[in-house]
């Protein structure tokens, strides 16, 4: 179990490192956060994520009510 923790943490750190490098490269090569947000909203991405968040909240509430009552 301890060995698996090491493996998982190594993979996680590598992925985070690569992700941070990718974000840094994007901003260094001319990325703009306002433009990204605008494009995402135009593609209904923000709305999609918000709907997904709502769905998760509903699921948690349902189970919480079932286990601990209202």
């Amino acid at each position, binding site marked *: *179990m301890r060995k*698996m*923790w090491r493996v*998982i*943490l190594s*993979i*996680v*750190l590598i*992925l*985070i490192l*690569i*992700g*941070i*490098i*990718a*974000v*840094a*490269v*994007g*901003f260094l*090569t*001319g*990325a*703009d*956060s306002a*433009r*990204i947000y605008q*494009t*995402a909203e*135009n*593609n209904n*991405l923000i709305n*999609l*994520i918000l709907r*997904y968040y709502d769905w*998760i909240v509903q*699921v*948690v509430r349902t*189970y919480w009510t079932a286990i601990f009552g209202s």
Partner: protein
Amino acid sequence: MTSINKQKFLAELGKLLTFMYEEDRLRAIGMYSRMFEEARDEQALIQSLISPTRQAVVVARAYNSNLGRLSLTSESKAAPEDRDENGIPDYVHAIEGVREKAWAAQGFPEEALAEEKPAEPAAEKAEEPAAEAETSEPAEAGSESEPEADEPAEEAIGSGEPEPAAAPEEAPETSDGEAGEEPAGPDAEKVGEPVAEEAAGPAEAGSEAEPEQEKADEVPAPAEDNPEDAAEKKTHEGIEYFTLPEEGKETPESPTLLDENSFNVDSDALKKIRRKPRVFALIVYILFAIPLTICAIAVLLIPALLFLGLSIASIICGVVLVSTAFKGFAVFADIMVLLGVSLVLFAFGLLFLWTAIWFIGGAIVGVVHGVAVLCEKWCYKEVLEA
């Protein structure tokens, strides 16, 4: 605390001699068994034999020199090198030597020894395969003359006829120094054995006797016969030997291998450990442990499910970001930012997923295991049973 007896000694020796051919092994065990039957005091004999291991080494020393010459393809174990000119294997000589020393240690009279000597080889000779029947004829003659050992000797002297068995034995006892008996006298090792050369007459037998004596000396003997070798503890065959004190020089500080602790078995170790439940404690423990365990599992399930949900959310967000990056974005820099963020989300998703698995498979299972271990510790007692 049990001390070794004949049965144990022979059983142990039989196990140690498994490297021999079955026929040879049975023969060796038979000789030792006969030794026990003839012994006045079984424990004294065991003490003089030291240990089964010691005797196995003695036999192995005599046997191993021949074993090295055996090939896998040889069908017959009885290679010519195995035996002396009389067809008697070397290890038989070695056991004979052991027997004589044991008899000497027990204070057997010389006459008794001399009378016993012809019988054994003859009896052993009878066990030999039919192919050796021709050479065993003199031995049979010796066995016939065993009860009246003096008569064949006189006949041999008088007639000059070959009487192999008893005639040489008489030599050390008679002080006449008769021609027919003197040469054979030193051949104590060969007494009673069917010497083929003796068929030509006592004088000729006497002339052959000295080479026989040399050969008998070459027969591997117990370690105390050759102190230098015993000191080296190793022979050229790579067998380790025990260093034994010389007879009469044994000190009380150096006990032999067969002291009273030898071959003792710790009787407590043979007892079986059995666990008996304490019924009342077990009932009380179950009454309290089951609800507590269920509560602990429920508490541990909440963070497990929480982390599971977080991991699922993170991974879904990452997938959505990746798909959107390639679907709606045209600028490479923006795509790189979205891919970087999605990778971070995947990383957190993996971490949360593993945490959820750890909670379910590690923590919850650990709690159940701990409850079971505590139950064993508190509610069971260990009892020794024979």
